[in-house]
C-alpha cells in the first residue's frame, strides 16, 4: 500500500492519573474515511486533538506523508494542511460567521486591513453549498442554532483546502436533511483525495460513510476493521465488550 497520509504511532497522553490515550496507533490514507468509535470518555477526542495540535502527546510519533511531523500547536497542524471540526465547535460566540470562518487566517486588503466584505462574500458562497437555508451572516454565532453553528464550523474546516480533515461528531446537532448534506460532502471530499478522521456514535452512519472503523475503550485501541469485513453487531460488541471478536476467532 502507498505511504499513509497520517500515521500515529504508539501515542499516549495522560491527564494527572488518567491515561486518556494509551499506546494507540492508527493510520489514514488519502481518499479514505476512518471512523473512530467508542464510549463517552474512551479517548477519541483526545487522540485527534494530539493531531490537531490542541494537546501535546506525552510519547509516540506522528508521521505525515512519510515524514516525521512535530505538532506543538494548532498552527503547526494547520501548516500540515490538517483542519479540525472540534466537538465543542471552537467558535468565538461574539463574532459573526465570516469572522469565525476566517479566524486566524483573515483575508486582508492590500493595505493589510481585514477585508470583511470579501470574507462575507466568500462565506455566503460556501454556506450556500453547505446549508442553503443559512441566512444569519451578520449575527454573532451565539444567536445561531446548534446546527447552524455546526455548519459554520464545518465550513471553516472545508474552506481552506485541507488534505486531512478531522471531524469530531460533526453531525451531532444536525437535522436529517443537513446530516445528509454532510454525508454527501464527505463523499465528495473523499473523491478529491482527502483523508478524513470521523468520530460519531452512530454506528449505522459510520458503516455507511467509513472505509475502516477503529474502536477505542478506556484510552486503548481495541481494533481497526474494514467495514466490509464486519457487521454492525461486531462493531457494537467491540464497543461494549472491548474485545475484537474477529481477532479472537
Amino acid at each position: 500500500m502507498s505511504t499513509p497520509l497520517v500515521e500515529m504511532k504508539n501515542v499516549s497522553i495522560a491527564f494527572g492519573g488518567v491515561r486518556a490515550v494509551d499506546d494507540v496507533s492508527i493510520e489514514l490514507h488519502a481518499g479514505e474515511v476512518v471512523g473512530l468509535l467508542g464510549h463517552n470518555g474512551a479517548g477519541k477526542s483526545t487522540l485527534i486533538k494530539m493531531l490537531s495540535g490542541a494537546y501535546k502527546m506525552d510519547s509516540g510519533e506522528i508521521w505525515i506523508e512519510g515524514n516525521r511531523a512535530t505538532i506543538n500547536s494548532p498552527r503547526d497542524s494547520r501548516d500540515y494542511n490538517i483542519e479540525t471540526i472540534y466537538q465543542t465547535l471552537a467558535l468565538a460566540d461574539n463574532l459573526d460567521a465570516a469572522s469565525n470562518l476566517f479566524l486566524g487566517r483573515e483575508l486582508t486588503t492590500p493595505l493589510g486591513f481585514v477585508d470583511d466584505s470579501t470574507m462575507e462574500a466568500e462565506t455566503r458562497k460556501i454556506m450556500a453549498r453547505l446549508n442553503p437555508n443559512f441566512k444569519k451572516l451578520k449575527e454573532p454565532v451565539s444567536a445561531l442554532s446548534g446546527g447552524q453553528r455546526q455548519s459554520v464550523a464545518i465550513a471553516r474546516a472545508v474552506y481552506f483546502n485541507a488534505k486531512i480533515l478531522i471531524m469530531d461528531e460533526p453531525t451531532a446537532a444536525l437535522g436529517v436533511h443537513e446530516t445528509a448534506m454532510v454525508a454527501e460532502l464527505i463523499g465528495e471530499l473523499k473523491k478529491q483525495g482527502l483523508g478524513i478522521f470521523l468520530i460519531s456514535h452512530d454506528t449505522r452512519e459510520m458503516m455507511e460513510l467509513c472505509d475502516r472503523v477503529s474502536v477505542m475503550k478506556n484510552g486503548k485501541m481495541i481494533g481497526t476493521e474494514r467495514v466490509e469485513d464486519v457487521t454492525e453487531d461486531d462493531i457494537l460488541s467491540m464497543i461494549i465488550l472491548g474485545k475484537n471478536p474477529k481477532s479472537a476467532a
Partner: protein
Amino acid sequence: MSDQSAPTPPPKRNFLQSLEVDTRLLGMIGAFFVVCIIFNILTDGRFLTPRNIFNLTIQTVSVAIMATGMVFVIVTRHIDLSVGALLATCTAVMGMTQTQWLPNLMGLELGHPMIPWITIAVGLCTGAVIGAAQGWLIGYQAIPAFIVTLGGLLVWRNVGWWLTDGATIGPLDQTFVLFGGISGTLGAFWSWIIGAAATVACLLAIWSGRSTKTKHGFPVKPMWAELSIMGVVVAAILGFVAVLNSYTVPSRVIARDPGLFGCETADGCVAAYGLPYSVLVLITVAIVMTVIALRTRLGRYIFATGGNPDAAELSGINTRLLTVKIFAMVGVLSALAGIVASARLGYHTNDIGTLDELRVIAAAVIGGTALSGGVGTIYGAIIGALIMQSLQSGMAMVGVDAPYQNIVVGAVLVAAVWIDIQYRKRVGAKS
C-alpha cells in the same frame, strides 16, 4: 434576522432600523445630553457655556485616552488596576527627563527644542516596557491580571515617588505643556480647517463603505438614511468646532502678549482658543484604536479571544503574546495620558493620576464594555469618560461636596451596568 435573498422584498423596517445606528450608542449619547441639560438647569445655564464645554473636554482627555486601552483589556477578560500608577511613573520619568536628566546628564540646556520630543519618546517607551512586562506576567506566567496590576498599582505609584524623591517636578518644558489643554490650542482658523478636513474624511469613509457593499451586492440602507447620517456627522463635527471657537480668550490674557494671538495691540483684539492639541491627541487615539478594533487582525484576535479564549487558541492565535501586546498598548496610552495630565498641571506631582484606574474602568464599563468579555467599543469608552467627567464637574459647579459626588458617581456606575444588562436581555444578546 432580515431576509437577504434578492427576490423577496425587504421587510418593513422602522425608522431606527433603516438608519442602522447602534441603539446603545444612541442611549449613551441620550444619557450624556440628559446629564448636560439637568446640570445646565441647575446651574442657571452656566454648564453649557463654550467655556465650560471647553474645560469639560480638556478634563476628559487623559481618562478617555486610557479608557480606549482599557476596552481591549476588559474585552479579553482581564483588568488593569495600575493605569493611574503607571501614569504617575511615566510622568515622573518625563518630568525628571526634561528638567534634570537631559539638562544635567546630557548637557542639553533647558528650553532646548529637542527636550520635549526626547522626553515624550522616553515616556512612551517607559509605558510600553512596563505594560509589556505586566502583560508577560499575565500572559506567559498565568498570574491573574487582577493580581499583577494590583501589585503594579502599589509598585508604580511608589516608583514614581522614588524617582522624584517625592518632590513636585517642574515647571515643565514650554513646548511640552502645550499638550495640556488651554495653553496649547489651534485658534479659530486652524480649528475650522481641521473640522472641515474631518468632515470630508468622515463623508468619504461613509461613502466608500457604501460602495464596497454595493460592489459585493450586499444590501445597503436607503439613500435618505445614509444622507441623514452624513448630515448628523457634519453637524456634530462642525458644531463642536463652532462651540470651541466661540470660547474667546479673555482680554487680560491677550493683553499679556497680543502677538501670540495675531494682533498688533491688545485693543479690539478678539481671538478664540479653538481646538486644544490634547483633544487632537484624543481624537487621533480614538481613530487609531477604532481602526485596530474593527479593521486589523490584532483587533479581530482581541475580540475573538474575549469571546472564546479556547477557540482563539485552537484557531492558531497566540493569546499569550496578544496579552503582552494589549498591556503594552495600555502602557503607551497611560504614558500619553500622563503627557496630557502633567502638561495640564505644568508639573509632575506625586498624586497625579490617583484613582484614575477607577475612573478609567468606570468609563469603559459605562460605555458598554462587558466584563464577561468579548464586547466593547472605543467610542463607548470615550462617551463613558465624558459622562463621568460631566457628572463630576457638574456636581462641583452645583456645589455638591466631594464625598457626595463620589456617592453619586459610584451609584451611577452600578446603575449604568444594570441598565446595560437589561438592554442586552431585551435585544436577546448573550453577554
